[in-house]
């Protein structure tokens, strides 16, 4: 059984692309456009890695992360912030979370492979 990679992202064009890319990488994509819905799904079928967009609704990536860590207690669930937002580096400097990474959009196939590969054997 291949690893599940969850993508939480409200941009359908990107979800479509990620579907193909993750499959090409040999993983099983779980694509969700809504953060709250994603949190529900995580309980039942926890993914190996979460690719998390930041600018989205109804809860944004940071709120999602907060809930995941404190409410769900999933402190060791690898999360890769998947965003085009320039402010993310600045915010990351203030966060000490060993299970948190960043991939800045646009991400090439090779970069995605390396980024996800860090967490998935």
């Amino acid at each position, binding site marked *: 059984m291949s690893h599940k990679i969850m993508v939480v992202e409200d*941009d359908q*064009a*990107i979800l*479509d*692309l*990620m579907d*193909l*890319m993750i499959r*090409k990488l040999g993983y099983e994509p779980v694509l969700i456009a809504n953060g709250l819905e994603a949190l529900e799904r995580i309980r039942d079928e926890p993914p190996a890695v979460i690719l998390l967009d930041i*600018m989205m609704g109804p809860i944004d990536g940071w709120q999602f992360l907060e809930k995941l860590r404190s409410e769900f207690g999933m402190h060791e669930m690898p999360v890769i912030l998947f965003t*085009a*937002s*320039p*402010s993310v580096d*600045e915010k990351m400097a203030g966060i000490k979370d060993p299970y948190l990474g960043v991939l*800045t*959009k*646009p*991400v*090439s*196939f*090779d970069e995605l492979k390396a980024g996800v590969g860090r967490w998935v054997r």
Partner: protein
Amino acid sequence: MNQSIGMKPFVTLVGYPVSRSDLTRFIIIATLSVACFVITVSSLSRSLETLYAQLFYFPIVYATYFYPRKGLLLAGACAVIYEIIAYLYIFPDTGGLIYVTGQAILFVCVAALVAFISEKLNTSEARSRSIVEKAQSGIILFDQNTLAVHLTNAHLEKMLGFSSEELAGMTFPQLFSTPEDREKFFAALKSGGEARNMETVFMTRDKGPLWVNLSTSRITENLVSCTVIDINKFMLAKQAADEIDNQYKQVADNFPTSIIIIRNQMIVYSNPSFEEFSGYARKDLMGKDPISLINPVDHEDFRDASHLAETRSRPAGRIEAGIRTKSGKMHPATLFFTRILQGEIPAVLINLVDIPGQEVLKEQIQQDSKRQRGIISTFAYELRTPLQPIMGYINLLTQDPDKYGVTEETKLLLDRCAKSVDRERQIINQMLELSVIDAGKIPLDYSIFPVSDLLTEIIATGGYQKNAEITVDIPPYLTFDADRNKISTVIDTMLSNAVNYSTPPRKIHIAYISPPGDTMDRLSIKDNGIGISDSRLDEIFEPFPTGEKNEKKERYERIGLSLAIAKKYIKMHQGYISVDSIMNLETTFCIHIPKKRPEEQEDNVT
């Protein structure tokens, strides 16, 4: 001798004013003379042999000493009367008569001798008197005890409008215009013994005030000489100047910015704006050393600027300094120093412009650049997002050519697309990086690292070995103390440029060129590329060339923002980048960074 020039009339005899001393002498001479005759007559009438001729020398010498001519007449008169008396009593004793005549002649001779000496003395006295009379300043002699005026000169008489007689009848204190001035003068005379250049007001004959400068000197125990200089014109001019000064103060009082005037390192004036700014009341500021209001780190600047302003009229100096207000807060301000004259005394006027006023402008600029950064950030976000599908799909197509029916030829075209997208991504990232550097938000992460490792890593990651023959000439174990990632980016930029702006066979030479004992680490990267014209050397570090520069971009357009970022990274290390180029032959970039990390980074030991 001084007594002899006293001119105090006591009584008037036959139209002549006779002083007290004259009268006294007259009485002495008359008494002595009469006594002589009485003694002579009485001794002769008792048939005494002696005529007591020597007695006559007393009135004769005394009179002749004080009044040479009258004394001579007296001597003559005495001689004649003595002769007559002698004839009456001792005639016809011829021997006695010869003796008496000899005595009478001797009277006149002695009188003549005394008169001669007295005249001589009087000449030298007259000379002194004429010096006093002709002096260009007023001179007045007065008795310290009685305060009676003994002597005045013509200059003083003219100055005050009194005649010498009128002055002689006055006492010195009567000359003063007000009791206050008088008391001030006598207080000075009492305390220091003498008055020096005292400015005070005398009263003229027509009751007008006259500004004078007084200096005294003691001549005898009781007699004081006072030099009087007319400074009325000067004082009136000064008063006028003070009036101008006052008007000037009125202007300064209503000035919106702070003004203080400093003289002899003391605040002598401050306007209400300064009082408001500093929180001090005017009475607290007057006489205060302004340096006490200045931030200690700015003391030297302040002293230099005020000294310069005091000695040179132009140009007005300016410094920025912290001003400590009454509440203890330090306010930054710009101080403008101007030399002014207060009366005739040089002073320094300082105009303070509160920097918070400037701060508003600065803040506005900061806000503007913050807004600009916001715009750049939004654009970056909006530009990056659509690049994701483009980049991703191109990658997928080239990853799986068979699946998507991609031919070798199409793959080549897709690779070019991918390169272009990558380049756009890079430009967006660099633009963001620049805006963050400009905001000063990037800290340096100092560490000591081996340079050869870094170079090996950069060359391998960038794949430069494939495109160029790279030679490295650095000492083994060479280390830099710097932000490794930033230095890496800078060297990578240099290598990337070297490859991009040259044609095969490419040769890149990296060398450590610091001479022994140098305080800087210097790393040069030389290529055999197309070179950079002199006129472009500065421009290549400019992130956003403007105007005509923009049109000249030509082949360098692909430099983009990387050199601008490299320059800023090295500048953050307090170093610099130099560049030398020979067109169509070679270009050498050189990175210079201090060996010793800046002090503020010293605690950051990693």
